């Protein structure tokens, strides 16, 4: 009996018993959800719904539940990155009522449920990388007072978020382009930023007569890579590898590599400690030295698994478009591709318009012609 009693206590007095105060809203008021009935889901209707809630009841009953519901619906309306919307939600909370008036209130979390709600709102902003502004601070100050938890959360956010905001060395515009081609260009430019002389081209597969897949190709190849490609041994096949993925914020772009053989490491037998015969210039005034091209040895393009000689992203990521890419590379300054065999080793078969590998498109065309 005693054991049962103790077990009962233990079960009910779990350590998070304090949190229980505001964790469950099951027995709370059932809130009328204005978002569910909105016909068009965009920022305007979202804000209208918020306004509607504000105007419905002067006491604003159930505002915490309303805010949680509104936060959950943000993605649906596509407004999760909009500061103005978050401000409108904060505006829902009544001013003055939640400000503690004595030290005990201040110390023991005055209106915990409401404070937690505001903190959750801020947390969602942070997750969506929305930077609050000073007006937001003023609003929180008016609602919770200077000792409120949301204020502290706000201040921490304002310390860290600007620091994280530009931490990535690859700059992206605030709004990513909606066009996939533009996105691919950004992605390829980011990958190829290791080589400042990289040249990025946009080609259309229409240029290749045999192509089936009519799409675009964003191809990047630097002059150094051209040289590396031209020096590939003709008997060893090149390999097209991919698709690999690169993230631009939430967007994913697939890209492919054209890999060649890595040259053997240059052997350097010189003793770095021996300074008895250092190089010295000839010393003829005005003589600058020979104008040889930059030595291409051990460039960034030569990696352990092979030499990356070109990189691309295509509109469909299909095998056919990659085949067109190889033909276009050959056409634009890499004649050596005529002689070198190319193998396609794609990790997962991409959602393909499906063309058998190496199956010449002309063959299919001929079939079509027959059937016609």
């Amino acid at each position, binding site marked *: 009996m005693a054991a049962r009693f103790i077990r009962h206590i233990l079960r009910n007095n779990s350590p998070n018993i304090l949190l229980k105060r505001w964790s469950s809203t099951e027995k709370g008021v059932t809130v009328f959800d204005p978002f569910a009935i909105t016909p068009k889901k965009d920022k305007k209707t979202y804000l209208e719904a918020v306004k509607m809630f504000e105007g419905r009841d002067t006491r604003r009953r159930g505002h915490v539940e309303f805010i949680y519901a509104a936060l959950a619906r943000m993605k649906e309306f596509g407004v999760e990155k909009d500061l103005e919307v978050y401000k409108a939600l904060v505006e829902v909370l009544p001013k003055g009522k939640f400000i503690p008036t004595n030290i005990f209130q201040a110390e023991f979390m005055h209106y915990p449920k409401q404070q937690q709600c505001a903190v959750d709102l801020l947390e969602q902003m942070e997750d969506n990388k929305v*930077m*609050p*502004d*000073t*007006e937001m601070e003023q609003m929180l100050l008016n609602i919770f007072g200077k000792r409120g938890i949301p204020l502290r959360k706000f201040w921490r956010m*304002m310390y860290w*978020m*600007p620091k994280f*905001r*530009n931490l990535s060395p690859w700059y992206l515009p605030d709004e990513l382009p909606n066009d996939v081609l533009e996105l691919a260009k950004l992605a390829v430019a980011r990958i190829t930023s290791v080589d*400042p002389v990289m040249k990025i081209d946009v080609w259309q597969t229409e240029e290749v007569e045999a192509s089936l897949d009519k799409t675009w190709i964003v191809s990047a190849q630097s002059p150094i890579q051209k040289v590396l490609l031209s020096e590939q041994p003709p008997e060893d096949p090149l390999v097209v590898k991919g698709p690999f993925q690169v993230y631009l914020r939430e967007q994913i772009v697939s890209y492919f590599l054209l890999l060649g053989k890595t040259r053997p490491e240059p052997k350097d037998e*010189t*003793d*770095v*400690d*021996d*300074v*008895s*015969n*250092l*190089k*010295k*210039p*000839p*010393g*003829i*005034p*005005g*003589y*600058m030295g*020979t*104008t040889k091209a930059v030595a291409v040895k051990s460039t960034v393009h030569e990696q352990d698994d092979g030499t990356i000689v070109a990189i691309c992203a295509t509109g469909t990521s299909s095998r056919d478009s990659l085949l067109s890419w190889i033909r276009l590379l050959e056409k634009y300054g890499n004649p050596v591709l005529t002689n070198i065999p190319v193998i396609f080793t794609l990790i997962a078969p991409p959602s393909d318009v499906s063309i058998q590998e190496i199956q010449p498109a002309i063959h299919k065309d001929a079939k079509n012609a027959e059937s016609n």
Partner: protein
Amino acid sequence: MNVARKICIINQNNITRQVYRTFRLSSVKRESTQASQTQIQEEKFEFEDVKIYERAERRKAQISPFMKDVFLSVFNRDLLAFPEIINKEEFEDLERRLKFLDSMFNDREKTKEDRINALKSTKMFAAPVPLTRNGLAINKTEGLRYLETIANDLDLGQIISDHWIGLEALKAGLTEEQYAAVVDDLTTGIWRISGEKVCKHTSGYLLVLCAVEASRLKAFLVHPKVEGVSSDGKFVKFFNTPATPLDNVKESHLAQILGISRLHAATLCRCSLKNAIHTVVDYVKPRSMAGKPLSELSTIRAAIGDALLDLYASESAEYFTAGLIDGYMEPDAELEMAMCRNFMASHGLSSVLKLLSIPALDKELECKRQFDDMRHLASRGETLDSVNMFIALNGIHHAGKLMAQEIKQIRNPLFNPTFIIRKIFENRHQEKDAPKLTLYLAEHLHPTLKQPAEQLEYCVLRMKFACETLMARHGIHVSEAYTELERLAEAATEILVMTSVLSRASRAYCIGLRNAEVEMKLAACFVERTKDRVKKLILEIDDGEFLNLDHFRCNFGKKILDTNTVLVEKPTARTFW
């Protein structure tokens, strides 16, 4: 040296690669105009007849290269006695010619024609040619004196400098017969026939430096009016041009001969600075400001004083170097010549800028022209950086040969524990930046110069430590540590200049030249000022790339080179509102 670096293509013989540069000889063109001839006849200056004897060889035995040794903190104290090259007869002869040239070049009324005629009549175009070939067989010291006077007309100064160097190169490079055939044409031949010759820029003999067989360099002489030479602005183009190769001269020797152009460049720069000083004095003298003469303004006085220090220092270094070349057999003074050029080019440029800012508002055009002259001379043919690299790499090459064993030990400390402990003990003074003064340079100078002499000694003694630090840090890759080598080159340059300044002032004071006490003060001031610079440079070498900020500077540069933006956001940009 030429006005522009010319890159041209020659497809002839075995010249396969680009031509990097041409050296223009002053060309010779026949033009006989009766009118000018009569005019000149009055001023004609007759000198002695063709000589039969060659100039006597008075040079001393070869010494080891002076500045290269300084990289090892080895100092040839004999050189603290300023070189005296010219004897009494030569001096008188020199003065006689100079007086005549001076009257021509300092007189603003004279035209270019008159000046060229004066040069011809004083055999200036044949100056470095042997006496037996109707030349003057001048040595470098005399050459500098002439050049200084001629450089009052900077154009002619540059032409004559190119001409002399071209002649020297020909003398070394051609066989006797070839030389004989060419030299008369260049110097006296035409003179005898028509009595007139005129210098022109675009045509005439050209000395062209080409790369042959991959990396070897060879000079070629292109005769006037041969096919395939065309000029386009400052560029001369060669196509299938026949040329005489200078086969007899090796690359290193050629480098030494052409290196003299650096010495001449220093002299020309110095003359340009001198002109700037005169301009400023002319401007300041009659003016006053706020009821006081402008000349009482201490900033103006200081600017002019600074310029004088540079002028004095450079002049000393040039004659010191010329003395090294003239005074000893088979001199190895290419480093010294390069240092003279770099000292004057860098200091002169900033000095002129400071000076010319005084009359800048009133005399804008004049100032612009003078500054442009200086800028042109300072960057003529090569940049400060490339010359600095030449100095540093040669010096460190020399030091490396002798310190190789030690460096190997320093770089492998665990294999040589006793050596390292001894080294730490030996270097304790150097680490504290207070080397023991063991060279006793003051003993070779006037006693008044004891303090500056000790300052020089400090600088010299620090050099070996700097070389050792650099080589121990980078090993064989020291030749790519450009930013640090640049400091080393600058420090060495200042040491050469300090040495020459001290020895000159000491000599002047000892033999009682006029204003010798001013020279003493100039020398003391210069050394005092420069020592701090050298000290800083070498401390920076010792500090390494993180403390002397090289690492960061290079990274900023790299980022900008990669992105071609200025990296930073505008000061009005914000991340939140």
